[in-house]
């Protein structure tokens, strides 16, 4: 497994959110489906578990990778965007000591790499760097330096390489002296760049940054005979860094070059920059196409030359000078001649008077990647000039170092060094910058200087200079996708000095951005790497939880099995934009987006508005089956199973939000409300005015400029309608998540054609690979209850396979012996938490602590930065011992998350854990009163006072342990019951099945095949065999439960079998009493032999062979007033039978009369197959039911066909009815175990979604059709889930139950029994006491601690431990 870094220490993060507050990187909030923004430091949603933040970070942004010095470009651009110039400079100056200089003259390779180029133009990175240095004086940035060391280093050359080396050495505590040949420091930055591009005071200012660190610069001190490298060592320098640059101009090599008036470009600029002036001609010719040529030309214009022309031998496209510079030169009047080269300097009296040129043409591409210029013979021409400036390149002047021992040079006259360490062949001598590279960019020299500094430091330490420094470039970097809505925000223009003001001076031409423009420009950054590593979060996090250098961790975990719950991916309508217009129309939303609009934590805090004009919508349409049941647009032939219900839910909630005149309209093919309680919900929606229109939507268009939408649709009758809506919601379906599919494949798990994991109907959580199980939508589309159930089933399958090794890896914690505090006066210790800034920032914590000291019984008060931190726990233990504290109050966050931690601390201190109380002064105080410190402080004091008052009355409470009878009773011997029994027994827990009838098998005995065609009889006989042969499964047939008592772990149930009552002790009970098909009193059932129900007909193949026409009627007795629920299985079962009939007898006509077809999930394919086979589906409504009459030939069935809009008469031979599934009468069992049943007589689980197989009463579980009608695969899943939950109890040595239970004072009790009556959990029983009648008795194992009995008792005879009357009233009375 590869664990990706979170960049936040989970153990330290307090989820305060300060990191997100300061994070500059705004990203789409996935949780709000992109409808709101979040930061790169984020918590996905308020209730997220773990409740800690995370930082999203991928590879370093391309700008940073393109920078020779690897500057954190994204970081400082973001800081500039926030106006945090000082922080921007801090980031820049990590690598680069000259921000204002490079902010002007850097050729910005970063901008070429900027991914914004893919949108429009790159971010003006260089200009933003300059803005930072313009807005904040970089000299004021505090540079962290290690303590100074003894060793001194000599640096030769004060150009960017030398300055950078000196800067980075100084930060490592190594001071250096720079020896500079020229009279001023700066190297090429000083003498190569004219002031109109780089004002000298900027350079001066930034050199000061380096000298301020203690670096000495000796000017006019060239290397040479009077100062050699050896001399430098003799003077005591421990290392020498050579960075003499490349200052020597390359000659043209043509006749006449020695004439007067011929001046090398670098020499021209050097004199100009050092003295402020240099001789300039009237007609100046410049040879070359680089920046030096341009600089000379623009300088010559400023110095008063009348005609300045540049002659370049290639074309404009090949010109190495920057485009901006070329344009500026042209604007200032410089003439550029392309495709011409000088051949001879024309002289007169030893002075230049002209130049002979030859025209060139471009030939093949040469080694530089540019096309080689070739002279055109006979094209020579002369031009008149009086000054010639060759500017065709420079190389290092090696005169002072070429003889240094151990130095080697390349054939281009540059120094040979190790490419990583910059070490020369001579020990302690390093070289870099232009001396090594030849003329190159300043930022390259800066990088070289930094690397040399690292090498020198390592050299002085005697460490390996190369280790870990090989450059690493990510191979396939992962970057944030370019957001679509960011396009078209053009690059901000750099303001410039007007042309007319440039003559005769060297005033800077580029004037720099103002703040607002700079921020706008910075906001164009795409944040390619997500987190920009500005480290603002590091500073903001008081808990010190941010770890930016966290690395991915590869883990190998030894496991016995694995469960895949990799989730779902919501269908993306983007590829079908022509139909859905989701991208282009603002008011077309997906259901996921709409869901967020309804949520209190959503982008509009739950206020429903239409996106185009923020007005409250009154007409909302839902379009069902977007990406489901759709092979025309996508290949999803399955039903997503959940969309109908969520659409109904959304419509009802939207109605609640908007009030009276709201219309919700759901355009659908069928409404699939096949889950428990769903049909009633559907009916309720209809009664509340939600419209359900059975139709196909053919178009969505915009009806007006406000974004109102028009839906065109066709109803069943073929009539076409148009209707306007404010919002159209696309009820998008589910698909397996692509990453889940990929992982499943990697694990060798088979997938089906829809990419769901392949499972079998009889082992629905087993994948094709033994030991790997699956749960949730990856197995097939399903809703939450089924997903949760399936997860428990997968856990069960895994537990069965690992039963033998259960408990092998568990460890038990040992606590010190508990101190007896009886008879002691309360000694309360209060710990007030600052929670970093979360409490301390919004309330006066010292004030609260002072106040706590004044409260009764308080003997010690401490304040902590983080009361929950590990070291504070140790401190609390010490304080408890030191001050002999016997009650502890922590005023901090919420007991929901932290009570358990502090209770453990009490145990570590030898105190009973119940001598503890929390005052919630964060979640319920400072966080909700953060705008008023005084009020928050006062309320915190109140809460502390109430907690202290209560705590004085707290008492130790012993743990409650209950022994467990390690066996299970299963009521019902159908598929669910048998599966549950086997699942327990296979884990080693004996199981007893109680079956009312004389055989095992239940309702499954009637079923031939599952919908996938698997043989049910074969499966069933195998299952019964296993049950009968299992050594620890007992089956009691013809047996009835007649009574039960006890509680979790200790039930005693009476079974009447063979005329005798037997009492069985068991720890858990699983109820699987099943359901049956009902017998109808309509459609001639029972009156005409041609009318059958359910599986009766398929048992008689001969009748089918002879029949010409068979009709199925669905929903017989389901979904009506008497049984307002859907029987869930009938559609699929009937269609499956119909398909079989058609296969057996292709001539047969099959009609299916239905109300809605509910072939949910992949069963939809069966429906499609049936239609393809010619099975005719006719929809009827409950108010126009089919009419069945007898005729001479058979049956006449009349039904109104809504498509044809007329009544059909079907002459049928056979009629099969899908009658309602109703629960087996089991009210008696509900009574014995005091478990609830619903209006339809199905058992009610504890929570439909969260506890789908549990009852509220511990130790009791439900599965199979006793819960609700369901197909075999779902029954099996539920049975395994029930066994899984039951095994949690049975696998423990004994049950530790919460001791915070009711306590009956039998002296006060008068035996009225009210408490027992009101208790929902059978936790109070009435016990007969001799001579006194009945008295209430608490059953701790069943008690949930709610206290209903206590508040109901007219005698005040019942009290609740830890929430005693006197404890609560003490808090109540502590009012101020």
């Amino acid at each position: 497994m590869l664990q990706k870094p979170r960049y936040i220490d989970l153990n330290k993060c307090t989820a305060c959110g300060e990191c997100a507050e300061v994070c500059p990187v705004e990203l789409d909030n996935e949780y709000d489906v992109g409808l709101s923004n979040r930061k790169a430091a984020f918590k996905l949603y308020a209730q997220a578990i773990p409740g800690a933040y995370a930082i999203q970070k991928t590879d370093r942004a391309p700008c940073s990778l393109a920078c020779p010095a690897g500057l954190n470009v994204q970081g400082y651009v973001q800081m500039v965007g926030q106006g945090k110039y000082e922080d921007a400079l801090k980031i820049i100056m990590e690598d680069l000591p000259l921000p204002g200089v490079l902010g002007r003259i850097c050729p910005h390779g970063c901008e070429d790499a900027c991914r914004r180029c893919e949108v429009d133009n790159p971010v003006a990175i260089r200009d933003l760097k300059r803005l930072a240095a313009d807005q904040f004086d970089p000299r004021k940035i505090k540079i962290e330096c290690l303590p100074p060391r003894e060793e001194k280093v000599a640096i030769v050359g004060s150009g960017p390489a030398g300055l950078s080396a000196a800067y980075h050495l100084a930060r490592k505590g190594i001071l250096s002296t720079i020896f500079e040949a020229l009279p001023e420091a700066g190297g090429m930055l000083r003498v190569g760049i004219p002031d109109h591009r780089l004002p000298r005071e900027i350079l001066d200012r930034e050199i000061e940054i380096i000298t301020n660190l203690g670096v000495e610069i000796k000017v006019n001190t060239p290397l040479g005979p009077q100062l050699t490298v050896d001399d430098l060592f003799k003077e005591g320098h421990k290392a020498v860094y050579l960075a003499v640059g490349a200052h020597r101009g390359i000659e043209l090599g043509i006749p006449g070059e020695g004439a007067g008036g011929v001046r090398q470009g670098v020499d021209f600029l050097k004199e100009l920059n050092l003295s402020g002036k240099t001789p300039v001609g009237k007609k100046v010719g410049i040879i070359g196409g680089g920046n030096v040529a341009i600089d000379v030309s623009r300088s010559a214009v400023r110095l008063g030359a009348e005609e300045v022309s540049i002659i370049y031998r290639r074309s404009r496209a090949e010109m190495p000078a920057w485009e901006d510079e070329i344009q500026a030169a042209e604007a200032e009047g410089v003439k550029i001649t392309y495709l011409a080269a000088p051949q001879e300097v024309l002289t007169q009296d030893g002075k230049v008077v002209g130049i002979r040129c030859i025209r060139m043409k471009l030939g093949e591409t040469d080694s530089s990647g540019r096309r080689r210029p070739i002279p055109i013979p006979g094209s020579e021409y002369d031009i008149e000039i009086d000054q010639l400036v060759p500017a065709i390149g420079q190389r290092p002047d090696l005169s002072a170092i070429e003889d240094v021992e151990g130095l080697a040079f390349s054939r281009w006259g540059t120094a040979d060094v190790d490419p990583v360490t910059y070490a020369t062949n001579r020990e302690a001598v390093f070289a870099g910058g232009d001396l090594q590279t030849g003329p190159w960019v300043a930022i390259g020299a800066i990088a070289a200087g930094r690397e040399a500094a690292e090498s020198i430091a390592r050299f002085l330490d005697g460490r390996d200079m190369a280790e870990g420094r090989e450059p690493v470039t990510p191979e396939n970097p992962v970057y944030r996708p370019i957001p679509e809505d960011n396009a078209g925000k053009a690059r901000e223009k750099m303001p410039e000095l007007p042309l007319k003001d440039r003559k005769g001076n060297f005033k800077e031409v580029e004037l720099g951005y103002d703040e607002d423009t700079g921020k706008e420009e910075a906001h164009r950054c795409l944040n390619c790497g997500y987190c920009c590593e500005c480290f603002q979060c590091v500073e903001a996090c008081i808990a010190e939880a941010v770890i930016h250098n966290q690395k991915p961790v590869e883990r190998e975990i030894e496991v016995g099995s694995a469960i895949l719950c990799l989730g779902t991916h919501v269908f993306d309508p983007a590829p079908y934009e022509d139909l859905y217009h989701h991208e282009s129309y603002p008011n077309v939303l997906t259901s996921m987006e709409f869901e967020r609009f309804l949520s209190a934590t959503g982008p509009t805090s739950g206020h429903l508005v239409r996106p185009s004009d923020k007005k409250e919508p009154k007409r909302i349409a839902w379009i069902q089956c977007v990406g489901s049941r759709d092979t025309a647009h996508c290949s999803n032939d399955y039903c997503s199973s959940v969309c109908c219900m969520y659409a109904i839910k959304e419509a009802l909630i939207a109605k609640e939000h908007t009030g009276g005149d709201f219309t919700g309209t759901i355009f659908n093919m069928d409404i699939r409300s096949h889950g428990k309680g769903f049909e009633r919900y559907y009916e309720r929606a209809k009664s509340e005015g939600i419209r359900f229109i059975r139709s196909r939507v053919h178009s969505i268009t915009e009806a007006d400029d406000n974004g109102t939408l028009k839906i065109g649709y066709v109803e069943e009758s073929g009539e076409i309608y148009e209707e306007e809506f404010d919002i159209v919601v696309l009820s998008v379906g589910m698909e397996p998540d692509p990453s889940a599919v990929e992982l499943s494949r990697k694990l060798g798990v088979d997938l089906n054609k829809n990419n769901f994991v392949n499972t079998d109907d009889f082992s629905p959580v087993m994948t094709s690979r033994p030991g790997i199980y699956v749960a949730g939508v990856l197995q097939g589309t399903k809703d939450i209850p089924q997903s949760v159930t399936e997860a428990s089933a997968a856990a069960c399958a895994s537990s069965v396979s690992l039963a033998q090794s259960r408990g092998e890896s568990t460890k038990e914690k040992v606590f010190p012996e508990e101190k007896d505090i009886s008879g002691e006066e309360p000694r309360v210790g209060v710990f007030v938490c600052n929670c970093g800034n979360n409490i301390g920032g919004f309330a006066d914590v010292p004030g609260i602590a002072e106040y706590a000291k004044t409260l009764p019984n308080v003997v010690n008060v401490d304040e902590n930065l983080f009361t929950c931190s590990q070291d504070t726990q140790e401190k609390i233990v010490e304080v408890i011992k030191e001050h002999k504290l016997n009650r502890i109050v922590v005023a901090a966050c919420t007991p929901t998350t932290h009570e358990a931690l502090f209770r453990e601390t009490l145990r570590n201190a030898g105190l009973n854990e119940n001598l503890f109380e929390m005052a919630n002064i964060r979640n319920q105080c400072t966080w909700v009163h953060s705008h008023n410190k005084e009020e928050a402080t006062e309320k915190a004091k109140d809460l502390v006072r109430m907690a202290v008052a209560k705590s004085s009355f707290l008492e130790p409470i012993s743990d409650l342990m209950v022994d467990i009878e390690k066996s299970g009773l299963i009521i019902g011997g159908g598929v669910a019951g048998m599966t549950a029994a086997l699942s327990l027994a296979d884990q080693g827990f004996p199981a007893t099945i109680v079956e009312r009838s004389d055989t095992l098998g239940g309702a499954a005995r009637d079923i031939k095949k599952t919908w996938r065609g698997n043989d049910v009889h074969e499966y069933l006989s195998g299952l019964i065999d296993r049950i009968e042969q299992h050594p620890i499964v007992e089956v009691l047939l013809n047996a009835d439960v007649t009574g039960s008592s006890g509680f979790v772990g200790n039930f005693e149930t009476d079974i009447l079998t063979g005329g005798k009552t037997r009492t069985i002790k068991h720890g858990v009970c699983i109820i699987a009493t099943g359901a049956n098909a009902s017998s109808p009193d309509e459609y001639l059932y029972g009156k005409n032999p041609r009318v059958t129900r359910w599986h009766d007909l398929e048992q008689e193949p001969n009748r089918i062979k002879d029949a010409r026409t068979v009709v199925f009627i669905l929903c017989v007795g389901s979904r009506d007033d008497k049984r307002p629920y859907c029987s869930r299985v009938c559609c699929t079962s009937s269609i499956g039978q119909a398909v079989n009939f058609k296969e057996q007898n292709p001539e047969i006509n099959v009609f299916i009369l239905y109300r809605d077809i509910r072939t949910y999930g992949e069963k939809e394919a069966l429906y499609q197959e049936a239609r393809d086979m010619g099975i005719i589906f006719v929809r009827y409504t409950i108010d126009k039911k089919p009419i069945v009459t007898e005729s001479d030939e058979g049956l006449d069935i009349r039904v109104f066909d809504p498509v044809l809009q007329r009544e059909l008469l079907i002459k049928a031979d056979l009629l099969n009815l899908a009658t309602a599934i109703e629960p087996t009468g089991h009210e008696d069992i509900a009574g014995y175990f005091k478990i609830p049943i619903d209006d339809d007589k199905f058992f009610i689980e504890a929570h439909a979604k969260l506890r789908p197989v549990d009852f509220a009463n511990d130790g009791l579980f439900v599965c199979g059709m006793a819960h609700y009608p369901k197909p075999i695969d779902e029954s099996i899943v539920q049975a395994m889930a029930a066994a899984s939950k039951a095994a949690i109890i049975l696998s423990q040595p004994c049950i530790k139950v919460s001791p915070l239970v009711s306590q009956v004072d039998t002296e006060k009790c008068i035996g009225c029994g009210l408490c027992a009556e009101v208790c929902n959990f059978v936790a109070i029983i009435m016990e007969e006491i001799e001579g006194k009648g009945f008295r209430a008795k608490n059953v701790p194992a069943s008690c949930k601690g709610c206290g209903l009995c206590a508040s109901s008792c007219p005698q005040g005879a019942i009290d609740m431990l830890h929430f005693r009357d006197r404890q609560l009233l003490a808090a109540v009375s502590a009012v101020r």
Partner: protein
Amino acid sequence: MEKFEPKILAFLCNWCAYAAADLAGVSRFQYPSNVKPLRVMCSARVDPLYIIKALKAGWDGILVSG
């Protein structure tokens, strides 16, 4: 006359209302500070007598939420 600010005591069920009040905090919803929560394991624990006693003790209003 000074504006009357009632002192309100809120009995909050541990499982729902108290958790909701915590979530309001996580979401930084702001509300008046004159309501003081007191956690009970179920709103059913709130004996009607508590309400009388609370009013007698000096609270101006009682909220039972669960």
